[in-house]
């Protein structure tokens, strides 16, 4: 597994109140799962939202649910609502 590195994680606007008013969170992680755990550790009020289900976009690629996807250094990372379809 690759080394953890600094990641700037963007949140959707509705999550700001649960991240002390921030729309971005800086954490150290190497995978999507590590990143989400680190975000919760930094802002525990986000736990309910993240546990209810979120997806993560890494460099524009939407990762619906996997916690093991690697996040490259310098990647654009955005937490978005969990996706499904009809």
């Amino acid at each position, binding site marked *: 597994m690759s080394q953890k590195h600094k990641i700037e994680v963007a949140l959707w606007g509705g999550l700001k109140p649960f991240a002390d008013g921030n729309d971005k969170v800086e954490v150290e992680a190497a995978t999507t799962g590590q990143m989400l755990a680190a975000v919760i550790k930094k802002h525990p009020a986000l736990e309910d*939202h993240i546990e209810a289900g979120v997806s993560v976009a890494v460099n524009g*690629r939407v990762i619906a649910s996997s916690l093991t*996807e690697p996040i490259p250094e310098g990647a654009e990372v955005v937490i*978005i*609502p969990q*996706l*499904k*379809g009809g």
Partner: protein
Amino acid sequence: MAFDEAKKDFNLIGTRPARPDGIDKVTGRAQFGADKAAPGQLHAAILRSPHAHARIKSIDTSAAEKAKGVKGIVTRADFATGLKGEMWNKLENVMAGEKALYDGHAIAAVAATSALAAKDALKLIKVDFEVLDHVTNVDESMKDGAPVIREGAAGPSTPEGMHPNVVGFYSSGHGDVDAGFADADLVIEDTFTTEATHQGYIEPHACLAQMGKDGKGEVWCCTQGHFNVAKVCGHLLGTEASQIRVTASEIGGGFGGKTEVFIEPVALALAKKTNRPVKLVMSRSEVFRASGPTASASMDIKIGMKKDGTMTAGRGVFRLQGGAFPGAPGTFTAMCAFAPYALENVSQEAYDVMTNRPKQAAYRAPGSPMAAFAVESVVDELCNQLGLDPIEVRLKNASREGSKASFGINWPRIGLVECLEAAKAHPHYSTAIPENGGRGVSCGFWFNHGGETAVSLALAEDGTVSLSVGTPDIGGSRASMCMMAAEELGIKYDDIRTTIADTATLGYNEISHGSRVTYASGLATIEAARDTIKKLCKRAAAKWGIDEDAVYWEDGFAKPSGPNAGEFEPMSLAKIASKMGATGGPIVGHYEATPEGAGVSFAVHIVDAEVDKETGSTSVGRYTVIQDAGKAIHPSYVEGQFQGGAAQGIGWALNEEYIYGEDGRLQNAGFLDYRIPVASDLPMIDTVIVEVPNPGHPYGVRGVGETSICPPLAAIANAVSNAAGVRMKSLPMSPPRILKALDEA
């Protein structure tokens, strides 16, 4: 998973072989949900609430239990207790608890020796209701004083101070929207509404269930996701999913509506109680009243534009009702609304609102079509007032690789610009608009999905292949799977047989939803075939006495990789398979993963429509669908998906709606009063397949099943508005609504 370069040279992919299930379908040999029978089976019927909102004070089943032929009755007391969250909501919808929450909500169910005896027995069940005030309109449901559907249902995102019926909230955006509006030459702001519609699948929900005293159950049903049926039934019956084996029947349409579970737990509960197999088939009326229609929507849109067509800002507020439970797809509505546009300033908010209606279900790209209707109507009006070409304006503002999406990501490689260019170049767009007619254009967007997937591919001694997938075939996927397996293995399409395996045969497979099957099961099929090829090469290497790395696979044959490997006659798949028992045993390839590379998809629709201003009726004269498929595996099926989405969109735009009376009861629970388009309502729907490969699939596939329903509401509304000379802001644009709009203009 990313594939650096999509495969480009194909033998079979992109051709149009006959569908493998075609003969079964046209001869009646295909078995649908209601076709399955078991010795000694009982027939079930469900008692449903006649009230939109009522407290259930008591249920007396004593008289019904004594009726001739009745073998068992279940109520909520026969299901699991202690459930929470999503599974509690599912149980509450499958069988009412303390309150009936909508007209048609299940109250009790009877199993009897005939369907007639079961229905007759329903009349003997006495329910003491305390009728409560109800609300079925999304805007009314958010107001102070509206009847409360259920206290405490709001999710963690819901802002404080909202009415208890508001159970979810989403907001996102970037830039300075007010500054963007100030920078515009023209700003248009308006409110739009859409009504709930039904997917209108031909086959009502049907199942056969049995459950022995050993606690092991079996279900045969029409569903988009039989693994999910097992999971939900396990929870609702208080057992494990692994104890319930579910087999998916053929399916007579789903479109998202069969991603939900309605009757299978009821049939299982009755089977458990009676120790007999139980068959349960919904009537069409029950399908309308108690399955899952779409959400309805109320939406405020504001967009600013410069005289040259540059969009300076967009704002949307979306209120969606999803019936008596959380889950309306407002979040997706908001995320899709401005997705086609690279806006520097954008904001969107969405509210998930409960009403006394059946729980909404997905209907192809849930939430997206109504968003496109609202946003694309305003874009069209801006173009009209500024005298600009609607496709040029869309091209000028189009999302493209690297631009920032309205919901925060930077787009990867996407095909919107290619779709718009194809639309501009299409003969339809340069043809004169018919006299008294109008032309409408719209973009549409959907995300698409991957999801848990497992596939197994087994060789037979005769050299044919049995491919087992776990995603019900709702749109021709067996043909696509056969093609992809045959392409990889280098054998004939007809030598592959694809079966939808039951839940005890494969690892968990997510529902056939999110336009994921050709993408995810297709990717898994390709990888399973590649796994098989490795094993075939190994057998050939052993036979030749060379290293397996010195063998490669080409066009259905194992071959030595070069002169150094030795000179051997290429060995066919059939030859290796014929001796596999003696050379190491059965050869089976498999693949299990959660593919996370589903590429998003955009579409552009062009519509010509004429409006009779005396009667208010609309006729759609010409229709063209242009959509990015990434790579079309079987173009006929892709075109079929394009046309199907457009046809359903025509119904949604022009006629279809759930109509509730003052009493909160559904007034049009049948196809006589709920009018879906028939053949004479539809024009020839032309299609253009755009192929911008998805790097997340080895062949470049993007899902196509859902995006096709995103643009039609807007494209048709723009055509009708331009033909009528008045902006249509509410769907459906049925004759009374058009006449009213003309009167008020």
